[in-house]
């Protein structure tokens, strides 16, 4: 057994030792001793700055990493943010938004609004689809009709009703034919939209993908294959989609024949789907990715590095208290919960991703009032952290309820939600001595289902605005809103205020409307304590310092159409 085994076993031993070396030095790197893993970790810190600028191998290509996948390129059935972003690359709407979120002309070169604010007339620019046919008013009419048709079953059909488009609800319910929808093509280049009530935010909303046009002839030729691959799409936006690898990458190439061409924008934009943010960050540091989202501890680690960007999103996380649960009908208990939660610490120390403490149910930087001030500025801060009050109200609640309370907090199984829920649990226990809080983690869809059917007590949920107006939040808590009023909050006073502002006597008066919203929010959050706002989501990211011109919008789709790389 001699001549044969030795070289083999040596080779093996060597291979194994090498293997072992990696796994042990890394399994323990940890240890955190003064020497230990420090070199490797330090390496990560320093190479980052050096590696990122070196990334510009091909400056006309920008690679953006997303942690959620593309779900569909059909803009009438899309529901998720990333699909909307990619659709906005290759389709355009009547308007687009500037960096500040104000509407700019895009496919509509100009528009007129009737005096009563009920009729909008858009004059279209000379744009073409990527197959050469002109974009006409008919394409818009066809697109909107498809969005609203019950057969399409679009989850975003409600948005036509939100802008008060004539007959939107009736068409969607199948009571009227699509032809009666309040959108008409006067001629090839003139589009007329009629509303039942004025809508302050209509122009901005025209940049939202659900309102994008659709070419009837092309769509019908594709049958059930429409928008399932780049071959089954034509585009009216600044980019063509040229690569679609499900679960991996989506490529967009600039269209030379786009009428409103941005000469500076990158030639190619690639969206990479990478669920694991750590590997995505490693790729960023290696220079293969230009834009990447940061999560959890990464934020702490990279804050201050060149390229670190903090943005505020419009997502507000809140706890709708389930009012159908007996003990939670006790006002003092709800007050105790409201005062026991330390929102500042949640934003600054638990999340650290640029999130801010919620001052009310309407997020900051969502909407600007008639006085030119941000809504939040007019409404002020109506949430409060006060352990003494929490204890006082809790003691009162215990007396009224005849004993200590056990509550269950439901949340979804994401990293951020988990950390926040654990912190809230600890704070409730600490500030309301005697209270028991259990946690219940569920996958997101299941959590929504349970919350929508009132099978919860406290639940951490979020809402992203569909348009830049407080109404997008206010509508949620109407007693008639069976889908979104998860806690079944039912207040005549609140309903009256909100309905007066959105459909009633104040709807046409911007200033009164605003005052009604401020008042209604106070009733909801600081009188009835039916909703406990927690935080407004931030988004920390690393962006290659050579890359610029990404417009982040808190109440609209993020815009990568002008992305530019030195």
């Amino acid at each position: 057994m001699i001549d044969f085994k030795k070289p083999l076993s040596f080779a093996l031993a060597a291979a194994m030792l090498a293997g072992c070396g990696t796994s042990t030095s890394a399994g323990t790197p940890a240890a955190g001793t003064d020497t230990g893993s420090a070199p490797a970790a330090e390496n990560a810190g320093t190479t980052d700055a050096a590696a990122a600028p070196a990334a510009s191998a091909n400056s006309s290509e920008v690679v953006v990493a997303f942690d959620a996948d593309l779900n569909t390129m059909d803009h009438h059935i899309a529901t998720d943010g990333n699909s909307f972003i990619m659709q906005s690359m290759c389709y355009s709407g009547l308007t687009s938004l500037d960096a500040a979120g104000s509407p700019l002309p895009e496919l509509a070169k100009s528009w007129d609004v009737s005096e009563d604010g009920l009729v909008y007339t858009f004059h279209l620019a000379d744009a073409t689809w990527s197959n050469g046919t002109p974009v006409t008013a008919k394409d818009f009419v066809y697109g909107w009709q498809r969005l609203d048709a019950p057969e399409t079953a679009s989850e975003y059909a409600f948005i036509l009703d939100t802008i008060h488009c004539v007959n939107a609800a009736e068409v969607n319910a199948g009571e009227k034919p699509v032809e009666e929808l309040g959108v008409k093509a006067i001629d090839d280049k003139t589009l007329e939209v009629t509303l039942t009530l004025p809508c302050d935010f209509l122009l901005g909303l025209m940049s939202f993908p659900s309102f994008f046009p659709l070419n009837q002839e092309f769509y019908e030729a594709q049958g059930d294959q429409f928008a399932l691959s780049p071959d089954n799409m034509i585009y009216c936006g600044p980019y063509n989609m040229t690569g679609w690898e499900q679960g991996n990458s989506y490529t967009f190439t600039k269209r030379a024949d786009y009428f409103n061409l941005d000469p500076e924008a990158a030639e190619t934009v690639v969206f990479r789907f990478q669920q694991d943010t750590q590997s995505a960050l490693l790729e960023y540091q290696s220079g293969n990715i230009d834009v990447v989202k940061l999560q959890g501890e990464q934020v702490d680690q990279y804050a201050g590095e060149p390229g670190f960007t903090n943005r505020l999103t419009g997502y507000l996380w809140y706890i709708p208290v389930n009012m159908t649960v007996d003990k939670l009908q006790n006002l003092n208990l709800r007050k105790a919960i409201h005062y026991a939660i330390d929102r500042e610490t949640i934003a600054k120390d638990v999340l650290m991703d640029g999130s801010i403490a919620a001052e009310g149910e309407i997020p900051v930087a969502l909407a600007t009032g008639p006085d030119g001030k941000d809504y939040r500025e007019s409404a002020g801060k109506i949430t409060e952290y006060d352990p003494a009050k929490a204890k006082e109200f809790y003691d009162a609640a215990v007396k009224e309820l005849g004993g200590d309370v056990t509550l269950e907090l439901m949340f979804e199984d994401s990293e951020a939600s988990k950390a926040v829920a654990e912190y809230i649990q600890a704070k409730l226990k600490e500030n309301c001595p005697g209270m028991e809080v259990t946690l219940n983690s569920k996958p997101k869809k299941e959590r929504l289902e349970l919350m929508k059917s009132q099978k919860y007590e406290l639940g951490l949920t979020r809402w992203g605005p569909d348009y830049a107006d407080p109404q997008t939040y206010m509508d949620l808590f109407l007693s008639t809103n069976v889908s979104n009023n998860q806690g079944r909050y039912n207040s005549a006073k609140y309903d009256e205020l909100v309905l007066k502002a959105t459909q009633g006597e104040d709807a046409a008066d911007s200033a009164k409307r605003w005052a009604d919203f401020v008042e209604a929010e106070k009733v909801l959050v600081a009188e009835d304590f039916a909703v406990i706002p927690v935080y407004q989501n931030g988004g920390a990211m690393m962006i290659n310092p050579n890359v610029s011109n990404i417009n982040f919008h808190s109440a609209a789709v993020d815009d990568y159409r002008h992305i530019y790389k030195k």
Partner: protein
Amino acid sequence: MSKYITKRVLISLATLLVILFVLFLMLDKMPGSPFNDEKLTETQKALLYAKYGLDQPFFVRFFKYLGAVLRGDLGVSYVLNKNKAVSDLISAPLLLSIRIGARAMLLGSVLGLLLGIAAALNHNTWIDTLCSFISIVGVSVPSYVFALLLAYYIGFVLKLTPILYNSKNVSASIILPTIALAMFPTANVSRFTRSEMIDVLNSEYILLVEAKGVRQTSLILRHALRNTLIPIITIMGPILVNLLTGSMVVEKVFGIPGIGMLMVQAIQNNDYNVVIACAFVYSAMYIAMMLIVDILYGIIDPRIRVAKGSA
């Protein structure tokens, strides 16, 4: 033999049918639905259910689905890639996963065999201890930890390979996932090879061969190894199953658009048709593998057939 094979194939098909039913039932009872979003209203939900026929009774849906499956139609995706035919959606990921899995299997088997033989030939020496230690570590460290360590040290610090999957450079970007996945088969095959080899080397017929004066190399390769290899076929089944499991997490770490990741995503999103298709593909592969292993075993070792017959 052919009768036995026919019988086994028929039983396997029946099993698959039952599995399909069980999967369908499980998804039906699963809380949540593919259509659930903060924004979705009850009316819209009803419209969507009607559109996809989800409002029909359970058995109607099941038999419709079954009929469609027999025609090769696996339905469409509800969430992940809306309205795309599931059969189109899963084919590319499946091929990619099989490609990586097959390589990992090959690498693991070869490495495991070498390790196991080295250990057996050097029974009770430091080499044996080292090999045993490595194989035990191999089954003891979770594959995702190993995968991330590889990504960090080989991909990032040493920059030897790409970290993430890149469709433009597939062969290079599947190196790390292959190694990460090969860890478990290596460990298992080496443990098994070692114990089998030790048994074989201690058996009378090897003594006989040795006594005949056959050369060492030939003794190991022609006599000992051959008889070691046969029983190893039996552990291929469990190893394959583990590869399927491991692929889910490893694909997540390296961003590989494979079937494992597709299934995890589909489960998270309640994308019924995709979940069923993926799970079904897993089951079918598993059952097919088991069948092949059994049949192979029967062909190689006639004793098995006799035992089967009596049992």
